[in-house]
């Protein structure tokens, strides 16, 4: 294998600012791996990247079926990239079903690479094609690169002593090799990866590398592909970074917070899509004294976390919408106990089981209000995969220093999506100082409060002379003993609210991006940041005076909302629900009129639709 992975100069090279590629196939075709490999190589070779996997909830749906199509989309750029891209420049479709489900997202004039071997009569039928799209002219608007990928791969691997199934399975590497050539990417990192991953199976390594190389060479010689493209290095690459999904970033944020606070981390959780990755990730870190407890159900997940918090851990629980519903009563208990607890909701399409693998932002009302009684909690949201690290850290800091449960909202899109995260080390992060008591203090009462934060002290079992009982019943404002006194209850309800409200004094003030004043303020929260930012940037490039106010902190709202909102002629709140944040703003700032842009399709915003919607308001 002496292939030199460089365009040998026989075809012209075109420079591009950014490219969006989607790899699609059966859920067993290895498309997630293929996409991840391409992303990693592009990033290591200097591009900015942003990915979005889109997979079915069926684990292995029947081969060739429409509902078994699994995809991985990536945008790579020579400049800052905040979304996985709207429309595709290249679609790699491993079978007719993959083509059928994804062709609508391809740009006119875009390229399709298909495995013609998969376009059999039976697969065409399964994809509900009446005639073969490769032959009936329906793809005339695109450059269609027809490659008998399966047979070429099998032919290339004929001398390698592995079973026939494994040979066929290597076709994803053939496809990847073609795409690497097309974008001038050296596949050395994938080769390194394959050698490491299959280090005990040399034949599999050989087969995969051979398939990759064959794909590369095939693309180079194929006349159908007239040019190759280069996406230049993005400027941010001087720094230390890792490509990280939002779920991994969330897990790491907690690891960092625990160590920074001098505490051990306890996660009580129950598997639920799309939040399970956080539990899986934290299960790896016994070496850092993490207890990742897989409980018998969602309720036990949070209840065990409450117990661990009572006993002095940084306690967290992770879930998605239906699980959050099950945790409601226990969140109320944590509100009443006034103990630190972080609840992560990786939102998915609802209601009920809804769309487990798709994204949505429709749990906001549940997070804010989904409990009995006056039960305020702090609610924060992460705006991108990398920001999930920052917000998991921040949520831990607030929970610990303010002695309160806090909800961290992410979603399936940023949870599964990935982008480069600038590596943070402990020295780069702020201090966390919980009001933990480990030695006897005189004249102490369980509900004595800090005069500034109103947080009570965190006295944990084992400290002599400080024995006390806390519980879900209303308690006396000082002693913590059960109290049914009417005035005491009202006092306690108000002070619990006040404690949460005062968190606003400890978080950053709202600052708009792009413009401090103007014709339109775009308002968003959470995982839509990338699309909103890209859309607003585009409008500003066109000379429009548009600002972006994106909220990481939802309850309490940060200071400065009124000031910022009043400097724009119009306000539009864009979110992936029916208008939950818009309504929350109406409740808190009635003096403004809020336009809405909403999408409830289980999909993230596209930049194009946002630009169009915002332009309508600028007329």
């Amino acid at each position, binding site marked *: 294998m002496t292939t030199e992975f460089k365009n040998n100069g026989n075809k012209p090279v075109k420079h591009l600012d950014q490219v969006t590629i989607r790899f699609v196939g059966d859920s067993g075709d290895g498309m997630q791996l293929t996409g991840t490999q391409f992303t990693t190589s592009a990033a290591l070779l200097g591009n900015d990247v942003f990915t979005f996997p889109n997979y079915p909830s069926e684990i292995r749906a029947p081969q060739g079926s429409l509902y078994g199509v699994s995809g991985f989309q990536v945008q790579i750029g020579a400049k800052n990239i905040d979304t996985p891209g709207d429309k595709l420049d290249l679609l790699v479709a491993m079978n007719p079903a993959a083509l059928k489900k994804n062709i609508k997202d391809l740009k006119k004039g875009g390229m399709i690479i298909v495995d013609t071997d998969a376009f059999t009569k039976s697969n065409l039928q399964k994809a509900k094609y009446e005639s073969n799209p490769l032959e009936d002219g329906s793809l005339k608007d695109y450059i269609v690169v027809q490659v008998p990928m399966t047979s070429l791969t099998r032919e290339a691997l004929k001398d390698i002593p592995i079973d026939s199934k494994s040979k066929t399975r290597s076709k994803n590497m053939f496809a990847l090799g073609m795409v690497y050539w097309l974008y001038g990417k050296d596949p050395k990192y994938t080769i390194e990866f394959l050698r490491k991953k299959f280090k005990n199976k040399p034949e599999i390594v050989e087969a995969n590398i051979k398939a990759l190389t064959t794909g590369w060479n095939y693309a180079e010689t194929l006349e159908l592909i007239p040019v190759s493209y280069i996406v230049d290095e993005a400027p941010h690459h001087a720094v230390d970074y*890792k490509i990280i999904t939002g779920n991994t970033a969330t897990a*790491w944020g907690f*690891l*960092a917070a625990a*160590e920074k606070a001098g505490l*051990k981390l*306890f996660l*009580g959780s129950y598997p639920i899509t799309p939040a399970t990755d956080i539990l899986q990730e934290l299960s790896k*870190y*016994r*070496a*850092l*004294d993490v*207890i990742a*407890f897989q*409980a*018998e*159900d969602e*309720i*036990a997940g949070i*209840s*065990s*976390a*409450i*117990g*661990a*918090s*009572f*006993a*002095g*851990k940084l*306690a967290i629980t992770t879930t998605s919408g239906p699980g959050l519903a099950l945790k409601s*009563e*226990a969140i*109320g*208990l944590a509100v009443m*106990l006034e103990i630190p607890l972080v609840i992560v909701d990786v939102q998915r399409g609802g209601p009920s089981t809804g769309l487990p693998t798709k994204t949505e932002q429709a749990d906001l009302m549940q997070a804010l209000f989904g409990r009995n009684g006056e039960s305020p909690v702090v609610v924060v949201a992460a705006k991108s995969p990398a920001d999930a690290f920052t917000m998991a850290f921040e949520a831990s800091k607030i929970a610990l220093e303010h002695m309160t449960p806090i909800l961290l909202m992410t979603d399936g899109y940023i949870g599964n999506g990935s982008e480069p995260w600038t*590596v*943070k*080390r*402990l020295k780069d992060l702020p201090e966390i100082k919980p009001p933990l008591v480990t030695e006897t203090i005189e004249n102490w009462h369980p509900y004595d409060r800090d005069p500034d934060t109103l947080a009570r002290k965190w006295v*944990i*079992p*084992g*400290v*002599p*002379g*400080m*024995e*006390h*009982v*806390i*519980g*879900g*019943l209303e308690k006396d404002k000082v002693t913590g*003993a*059960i109290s049914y006194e009417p005035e005491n209850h009202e006092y306690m309800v108000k002070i619990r609210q006040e404690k949460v409200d005062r968190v606003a004094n400890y978080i950053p003030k709202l600052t708009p991006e792009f413009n401090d004043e103007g014709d339109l303020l775009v308002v968003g929260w959470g995982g839509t940041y990338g699309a909103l930012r890209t859309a607003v940037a585009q409008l500003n490039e066109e000379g429009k005076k548009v600002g972006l106010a994106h909220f990481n902190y939802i309850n309490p709202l940060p200071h400065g909302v009124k000031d910022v909102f009043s400097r724009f002629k119009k306000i539009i709140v864009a979110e992936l629900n029916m208008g939950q944040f818009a309504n929350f703003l109406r409740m808190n700032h009635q003096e403004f009129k809020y336009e809405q842009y909403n999408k409830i399709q289980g999909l993230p915003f596209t930049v194009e639709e946002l630009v169009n919607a915002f332009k309508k308001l600028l007329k």
Partner: protein
Amino acid sequence: MTTKIKYTFKDFQSDQEVRWCPGCDDYVILRSVQKALPLIDLPKEKFVFVSGIGCSSRFPYYMANYGLHGIHGRAAAIATGVRLANPDLSVFVMTGDGDSLAIGGNHFIHALRRDINLNIILFNNEIYGLTKGQFSPTSRIGQKTKTSPYGNTQPPFNPGELAIGAEARFFARVAGNDAKHQTEIYVQAHHFEGTALVEVLQNCVIFNDGAYKFWTDKSVRDEHTVYVEHGKPMIFGKNRDKGLILDGLELKEVTIGENGITEDDILVHDAHNPDPTLHLMLVRMKNPLVMGVIRSVKEKTLEEREAELTEHVKAISKIKSFDDLVS
């Protein structure tokens, strides 16, 4: 730093006024626990009482220890978190038949399955007391309650049977009015490493009075109950002349001295047998009803497994800090 202090039961009494109904067995349970703790060589601050909801669950307020009064059914799950977080604590779960066998059934069985070192004291009064008299998962068929005015149609759980089915390694049964036996058993439950379940036959004087009098009334209790101890023959009766033998696949009551039966024929209790078959038969028997530690099988606890694994991973891992992870 912990100094050895000699405690008396008074050291475990809180300043809160006890608000159970006069005559309730809960008072006996409270006093028995308060008398058990001084017999355990552990400083007061190392005990934690966790409860759910119900009459039983007011318990932590009456103890001068650390306590957490949780929400309905979740005591075992909360206690699991406390114990995993700090294995130096002795954690008691104070719960009832509604709390642990109905709404909290899932946490109850999973705590037993995991064998985490908790002491679960199950106040079984076969009724919902705090909500004023509805049938519970241990109420008997035909029992008239406020929600079964014509008689209960739902067959009950036998807590011991359920527990053994859920892999319980320690199960004991005590009478709610027998303070001395309770104190003994609570000490044993504490010392058992693993999930120890103690079922207390607790009389609810208001809504289900006399539910256990066939076994707990002083006039008949010697004849209707057998107090078992590991390694000792299962002999009972006022004159210590009755015993249990295994007849085929059934336990049978016999009289010593009749039909050639001698004391040597009486079955010797083996609480440590991992095979639960005989324990299940003992748990199911109604007359005589079996009291005491029926099953006590030491296995590796969840905490021990966790600690071993963590130690192993630490020994082979290069990651000692978050900074190592991202480097």
